[in-house]
C-alpha cells in the first residue's frame, strides 16, 4: 500500500536562487563525425564541424545543428530525445552512449568530440547501423513470458520481493549500447551479446515464468553466456544504469546451479 503522506505546507519560504537557472553560457566545440555513404564512396572518413552550442545542449543537438543548418545528408537515427526510445546509441569519444543523454558540457570541449557508429554491426550510412542481427539475438532467447499453468481470472499474484528480483533488467530499451561495446561481440558475430542475455534474465528471474530452463539451455550454448569475459564494458555503456555484467553472472550461476 502506498505510504500516506502528511499534507504539504501551503506556503513555504523559498531560499534565494532556488530552481536553478541563471545565464546559460555558450561555448564552441569541434564535432568530428564519422561519415560513410556507399552511394558516394566505399571509404569512411572523418568530417569536422565548428559549432557554437549552449549549456544545456546534448550531442544530439550538435548533430541536429549540422544536419539542419549545414549538411542535410548527415544521417542518424533519433526519436524521443530523452533517453527512452534507444534510437541514438553511438560511439562518443570512444564510449558507447546515447547522443540525447550526453551533455556537451560534460565532455572535454577543448578537444574535438568524436562521434562514430556503434561497433560490431554493419554500417549502413553515417551513424546508422543494421540492427537486424541485434534483434535476431534478442528474439532467440524467447523474450516473452511463458506460463504453463491455467490462466487466472484476475492477475497472477507476485510478491513485492519477487517483482524486485528482476526489476533492473526490465529497464532495457534495446539500444544496443552494451552489445556493441563488447569486445567478444566485435570479434565473434555469433555471440548473443549482453542485451539478449539481459532480456533472458528478465524472464528467467520472473517468478511467473515457467520457461527458465529452456532459456538457460539456449544460453548454455557455445555462443551463449560462456563467451562473456567479464570486461564490464557493457555495464559502463548502459544508459539505463543496468548492472549488465551482474545480470550475466547471475545467468551463469543459474546454469551451473541447475547442473548440480
Amino acid at each position, binding site marked *: *500500500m*502506498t505510504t500516506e*503522506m502528511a499534507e*504539504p*505546507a*501551503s*506556503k*513555504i519560504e*523559498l531560499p534565494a536562487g*532556488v*530552481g*536553478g*537557472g*541563471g545565464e546559460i553560457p555558450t561555448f564552441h566545440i569541434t564535432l568530428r563525425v564519422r561519415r560513410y555513404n556507399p*552511394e*558516394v564512396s566505399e571509404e569512411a572518413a572523418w568530417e569536422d564541424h565548428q559549432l557554437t552550442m549552449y549549456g*544545456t545542449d546534448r550531442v544530439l543537438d550538435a548533430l*541536429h545543428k549540422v*544536419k*539542419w*543548418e549545414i*549538411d*542535410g*545528408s548527415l*544521417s*542518424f*537515427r*533519433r*526519436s*524521443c*530525445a530523452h*533517453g527512452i*526510445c534507444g*534510437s541514438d546509441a553511438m560511439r562518443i569519444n570512444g564510449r558507447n552512449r546515447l547522443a540525447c*543523454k550526453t551533455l556537451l558540457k560534460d565532455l572535454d570541449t577543448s578537444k574535438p568530440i568524436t562521434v562514430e557508429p556503434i561497433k560490431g554491426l554493419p554500417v*549502413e*550510412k553515417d551513424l546508422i547501423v543494421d*540492427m537486424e542481427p541485434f*534483434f535476431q539475438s534478442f528474439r532467440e532467447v*524467447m*523474450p*516473452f*513470458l511463458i*506460463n504453463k499453468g491455467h*490462466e487466472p481470472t*484476475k*492477475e497472477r*499474484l*507476485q*510478491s*513485492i520481493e519477487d*517483482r524486485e528480483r528482476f*526489476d533492473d533488467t*526490465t*529497464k*532495457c*530499451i*534495446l539500444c544496443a549500447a552494451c552489445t556493441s561495446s563488447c569486445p567478444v561481440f566485435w570479434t565473434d558475430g555469433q555471440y548473443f551479446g549482453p542485451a539478449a542475455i539481459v532480456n533472458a534474465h528478465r*524472464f528467467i528471474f*520472473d517468478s511467473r515464468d515457467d520457461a527458465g530452463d529452456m532459456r538457460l539451455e539456449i544460453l548454455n550454448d557455445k555462443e551463449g553466456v560462456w563467451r562473456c569475459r567479464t570486461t564490464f564494458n557493457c555495464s559502463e555503456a548502459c544508459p539505463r544504469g543496468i548492472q549488465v555484467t551482474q545480470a550475466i553472472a547471475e545467468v551463469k550461476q543459474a546454469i551451473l546451479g541447475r547442473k548440480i
Partner: protein
Amino acid sequence: MQVHKYDVVIVGAGGAGMRAAIESGQRARTAVLTKLYPTRSHTGAAQGGMCAALANVEEDNWEWHTFDTIKGGDYLVDQDAAEVMAKEAIDAVLDLEKMGLPFNRTPEGRIDQRRFGGHTRDHGKAPVRRACYAADRTGHMILQTLYQNCVKHNVEFYNEYYVLDLLLVEEDAVREDGTPYKQKRVAGVVSYDLASGELHVFQAKSVVFASGGAGKVFKTTSNAHTLTGDGMGIAFRRGIPLEDMEFFQFHPTGLAGLGILLTEGARGEGAILRNSEGERFMERYAPTIKDLAPRDIVARAMANEVREGRGCGPDKDYVLLDLTHLEPEHIEAKLPDITEFARTYLGVEPFTDPVPVFPTAHYAMGGIPTNIATEVLQDNDTVVPGLFAAGEVACVSVHGSNRLGTNSLLDINVFGKRAGIAAAEYSKTADFVELPEDPEAQTRGMLDGLLGGTGTERVAQIRKELQDTMDANMQVFRTKESLEKVLSDIASFEERYKNVVVQDKGKRFNLDLLEAVELGFLLDMAKVMTVGALHREESRGGHYREDFPDRDDEKFMKHSMAYKDSSVTTESSAESVAGIRLETKPVVFTRYEPMERKY
C-alpha cells in the same frame, strides 16, 4: 515498385499498433508497417500509469471512471465510448499482466494502484487510487511487453517503412433516404522503405491506422521528433475528416525550457507545485483536489501564475515542482526515471531542490474520427469499410476536450485490441479492392518534387518558425488575434515550403527527404488545429479563448469536423480558411448531463 498483399496492414507499431497486431496476427495474415523500429515508439515515453477500476487498494468501480473521463473531457466526450473504455479497462490491465507486464505490487501481491489527476472516488469527492503502474516507466513496460508478445506470435514487421499514402476508391452509393453519395473503400497503402528509398505498395482488405500524434507542431513538447501527424495528414489529404483537432493537451510538468515530461504520478505520490512566493497555488484554482486537478486546469493555472509575475528563475518563466518533503527512498522507488531526468538535463537534485517546470505540448485529443468499433468515418456516420484507427491518431472520442492522465495508455490497449480484432474479422468477409491505376503516382510525384526542387528554403528553419508561432499563439491561452496570426504565418510557410531544399539526393536512408515530407504534414495539422480553434468561440477543456472565457454548450456542445476542400477559398466567407471546410458532429450522451466543471 513492389506490391505486397496482406489481409490486414497496420500502420504504426506503438502501443495501439502492436496491441492490434497481437489480435489481428492470430486471426488473419497481417503486416505492421512502421516508420521506426517498434521499440522506438513514443508509447515508451509514457510514465505514470494506466487507470482501471480494479479496486485493488480502495473502493472503486468503472462507472466512477466513466464519469471522471467525461467530466475531465469537459462533456465533449462521447459517453458510449467512455463507458466502453472504462469497462474494458479492467481486462486491458489483466491482459497485459498475463502477457508478462511487471506491474508494481501491493503487499498482498496484487497490482498496485496510485492517484492521478482527475481520477476520483464517487464523482469527484476525493482522489482515488486507480492508476496501475510500473515505477515511472509504465509506457516503457507496455511497449516492451507488447513487442515481446509480437515476437511470441511471429508478427510480421516492416521496420522503417514510412507510410505516405492511403489508397481509397470511391463508389457511387445511395443513402436510405435516397440521396446519392460517394462511398469510400480502402484498397491499401503506399510506403517508402527508408533503407533503400524504394516505394512499396501494400494491398490490403483492412488497414489500421495507429501512427500516433502530431506534437511536433509545437516547440516545447514532450513528443518525439518523429511525431509529425503523418497518419492524420495522410487521411486528411484523402478526404477523411479530422475531428476536434483544436483540442491539444499541454501537460503541466515539462522540464522548463526543454519540455521533457515529468509524470503527473509525481503529484500522485505527493509532489506539489509552487510559485516564486513558495505558495501552493493550486489551492486557489482547484480547492478540493488541488495539484491533482486535470491537466488543462493545472497547465492554465501555471501559465497564469507566470503571467501574473509569480514565475521563478531569472526570467520568471516557470514554476516549481516540489518533491523535497517526500522521503528519498519513496521517490527512488516510485519515480526513479523522472528524478534522473531532472539531474541529467537541468542539473537539479529533486531530493533537495524543487524542479523547474512549465506546460509542454503533450497529446492530440482529436484525430481521425471512428465509432466505438474503431471503424473510420468518412462523415458523421458513414463508415469506410476496411479502414480502422486507434490510439492518438484516432478520435473515438473518449478524451473530449481534455484527456485525463493514464487514459491514453488505456485508449491504446482497449481500442488497439478492438481494432485488431475488427480488422481481422472484416478481412475474412471482404474481398480485396482493386488497386487504383498507378497507385504510387501521387507519392512518387511528391517525393520527386521535393528531391528535384531548386529552392533554398531550409526545412528546419520553416519548422522552427512554425513551432515558434504555435508556442506563442496557439498554446494555453488563445485569442482571435493570436490565431489569425498563426494562420497568416502558416500561409507564408506554405509558400516557402514550395521552395524547400532537400540536400541529400541519395536513396539510402534519406532522412533529409523524410523531414521535408514530415514538415508538409506538420503544416497541414497546425492549420487544421488553428482553424478549429478560431471557429470555436468558447473555452472548453484544453481549448481556452481569452476572448470567450466561458463554455458555451448552446453553440458548441458538438465535435468539429475538418475536411480538406479545395473549393473553399478565402473569398467563400469572411471566416473561411483556404482549403478547409468545417462541419460539426453531435456529441453522444448516455447518462451524464453536462454540469459546471469544478474540482
